[in-house]
């Protein structure tokens, strides 16, 4: 019984996170300005990180957690670089 | 050789925990941590002094509780969305803290709490620009930040 609940909640969590990723992607396509798109990309990174962790719980493999750590670091570096670019790159001083 | 012993030790422990406790990884982790601490020393960060470090758990407790509370508040705002109109806005808060580490901790606390975002600190007028999602009363937010976080941080980093 409790194991069925666990399996269902893992599935529900995966569906929730997938919808969240779709919404972030929607904002990334729609976002009126560049900073909206960068923020959407950052949200997308965090959501995919969480989704990989839920995958890791479903399969019990460590490799998913390592992948999620790497995605987190890539996301941080990418967002910082993009924010720096927005700050210095194309603004008319 | 080792300018930051605590940093090096935690790097070695992290390396071993991620890769397995073997002598080979211990040596590799030591080499990595020595180079990482040299890199850290090249950045010359200000060494923070924490005379009242035993107050830190209190700060962490307050912050975790506040984040949980504002999570629920912001979630209800987002879900009820169009029906209950919320008003967001910018507020300026005068800050007396000067220690850069204390300011950094305050910035992290305010930004990681949903509903408030730290925008910029002006070191000349000593004010902070903060954006609040559900702005009802500006004076209330200023008082909250000053009494709840700033007073405690002043005491910790004095």
């Amino acid at each position: 019984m409790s194991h069925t609940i666990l399996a269902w909640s893992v599935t529900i969590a995966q569906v929730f996170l997938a919808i969240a990723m779709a919404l972030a992607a929607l904002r990334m396509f729609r976002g009126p300005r560049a900073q909206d798109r960068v923020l959407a990309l950052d949200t997308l990174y965090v959501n995919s990180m969480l989704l990989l962790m839920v995958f890791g719980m479903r399969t019990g493999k460590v490799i998913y957690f390592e992948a999620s750590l790497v995605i987190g670091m890539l996301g941080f570096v990418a967002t910082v670089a993009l924010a720096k670019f927005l700050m210095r790159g194309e603004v008319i001083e | 050789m080792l300018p930051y012993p605590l940093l090096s030790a935690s790097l070695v422990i992290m390396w071993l925990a991620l890769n397995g406790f073997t002598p080979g990884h211990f040596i590799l982790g030591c080499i990595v941590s020595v180079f990482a601490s040299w890199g850290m020393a090249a950045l010359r960060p200000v060494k923070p002094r924490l005379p009242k470090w035993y107050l830190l758990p209190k700060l962490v407790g307050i912050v975790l509780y506040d984040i949980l509370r504002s999570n629920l508040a912001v979630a209800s705002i987002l879900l009820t969305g169009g029906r209950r109109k919320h008003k967001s806005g910018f507020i300026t808060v005068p800050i007396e803290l000067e220690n850069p580490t204390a300011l950094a901790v305050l910035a992290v606390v305010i930004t990681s709490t949903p509903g408030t975002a730290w925008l910029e600190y002006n070191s000349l007028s000593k004010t902070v620009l903060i954006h609040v999602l559900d702005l009802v009363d500006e004076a209330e937010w200023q008082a909250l930040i000053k009494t709840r976080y700033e007073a405690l941080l002043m005491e910790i980093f004095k």
Partner: protein
Amino acid sequence: MNVIEHAGDLPAWAALAVSFFLVVGAGLTLTGTIGFARLPTFYERIHAPTLGTSWGTGGIVMASMIFFTVLATRPVVHEILIGIFVTVTTPVTLMLLARAALHRDRAEGNPEVPAEAPLEREAEGQPAAGD
């Protein structure tokens, strides 16, 4: 719905706790992203992802820690590292992005944004901004 195979001898209380934390964490993340898609201005939108990065991540990390600790299949290092990492990095990225947006809006002369305070020194104005 298949039962997860490798969770064979997980006691009932642990399964329920894991389910609770998973659904709460994922639900908070989803709520934050719904708000992110719906809110009208950038400065309001910047609050929405913090739901996912504070207790959204916290809930999923907690669920995973309970799951693998009770099963005792592996040490829970990655979860702790992910939790610390998300907590430390999210404010930095959000602050940098907010400052970039503020800078762009001021350069364009948008009226909704408060004006720059006079005589600002660049060098000391950014604690924890990752410079």
